[in-house]
């Protein structure tokens, strides 16, 4: 009986979601705050891809990214009353998703700099060894989709703290100072993390090209 009621409620919810499709984000938020939770469901559908990708790039695991994305939307709902509806919803939910994923990384102790062996390049600058060498795999033909997959794989192969700075700089366009504040790092660390992360990405992409 409970399953039947839940299924009926979900179907009714789907019909209601279709009617929300033409409404602007701020209208959906107003309806959600007035008790129409299904209006918030439409907001979830609009921004779940964005939130999922932020979580995936940071967490490096698809299932974990889904859980984190869900958690981000639940937290956003709890804070919806404090959201300024004159501002766009996307960046706001993006920040919540980022903080949720970073908190997850910190709880697992993955957001700190790991102890790794370092090497020097010809210029005497030190960097960590790159991710595994996939060049021994069977011949790879790079189409646009595979190039995208290669870049995605390169990002996921980075250590978590490097993924975090790459995410905040290149995907959320945050300044070095904002990254330092978000991650609780000195500005000098942000610069060196970005430098090393980009070097690792370059080496990985060249090795697997």
């Amino acid at each position, binding site marked *: 009986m409970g399953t039947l009621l839940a299924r009926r409620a979900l179907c009714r919810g789907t019909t209601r979601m279709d009617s929300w499709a033409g409404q602007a984000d701020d209208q959906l938020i107003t309806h959600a705050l007035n*008790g129409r939770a299904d209006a918030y469901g439409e907001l979830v559908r609009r921004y779940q891809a964005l939130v999922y990708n932020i979580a995936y790039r940071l967490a490096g695991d698809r299932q974990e990214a889904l859980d984190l994305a869900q958690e981000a939307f639940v937290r956003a709902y709890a804070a919806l009353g404090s959201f300024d509806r004159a501002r766009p919803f996307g960046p706001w939910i993006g920040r919540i998703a980022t903080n949720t994923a970073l908190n997850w990384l910190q709880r697992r102790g993955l957001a700190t700099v790991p102890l790794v062996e370092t090497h020097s390049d010809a210029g005497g600058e030190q960097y960590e060894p790159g991710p595994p060498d996939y060049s021994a795999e069977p011949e790879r033909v790079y189409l646009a989709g595979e190039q995208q997959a290669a870049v995605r794989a390169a990002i996921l192969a980075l250590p978590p703290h490097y993924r975090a700075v790459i995410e905040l700089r290149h995907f959320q366009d945050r300044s070095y100072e904002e990254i330092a504040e978000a991650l609780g790092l000195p500005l000098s660390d942000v610069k060196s993390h970005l430098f090393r992360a980009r070097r690792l990405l*370059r080496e990985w992409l060249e090795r697997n090209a």
Partner: protein
Amino acid sequence: MNHLSSNTLDLYLDDRLDPPARAAAHAHLAGCERCRAELDALREVFLALETLEPEPIPVDLSARVLERIAPVAARPARRPYVAALLVVQVALTLLLALWLGPPPIDWAGLDRLVVPGQAVLSPVWLAAYAPDFQAVIDLVGRLRVLPNPLAAIAPEQWLYLIVAAGIIWLAGNRLLLAGLNRSHDMHQEARP
């Protein structure tokens, strides 16, 4: 020839060099093929990141999220004007109570009040504070001469009307008698 360090090229591409350093790097790049090649290779990394398409999400999260927020969504939303309306209602009620005036006080008979510790209400105490009370009574008496805009409705009836409207409004906004005032929504019905 000294070449630009990888770190400098990185900051140059990310627009993080101060103007003099940027100008110096720009001038060097104009004449150094090796550094330009290094810069182009780094630019490819930036471009690869900036053109990365988002990955499609494998499931629709909306149903799961709605299920989790259902207990929160079922609670009535607090409206910001509730407090203001409550203050207005209380103020109107108090004004009307003043307008009606207090019941007449039998000053001479106060000493006959039956209260524990009757000695506290001694005639001396009453004589000391009675003038202040009398001033309040005189003020209220002056208020009672204000014209009643709707003469058909007595002041006492206005008071009852405002109190009754307040109770109905509070109940309608689930601030009173909330246990008897449930609304039906899909999240409540979805619970087993």
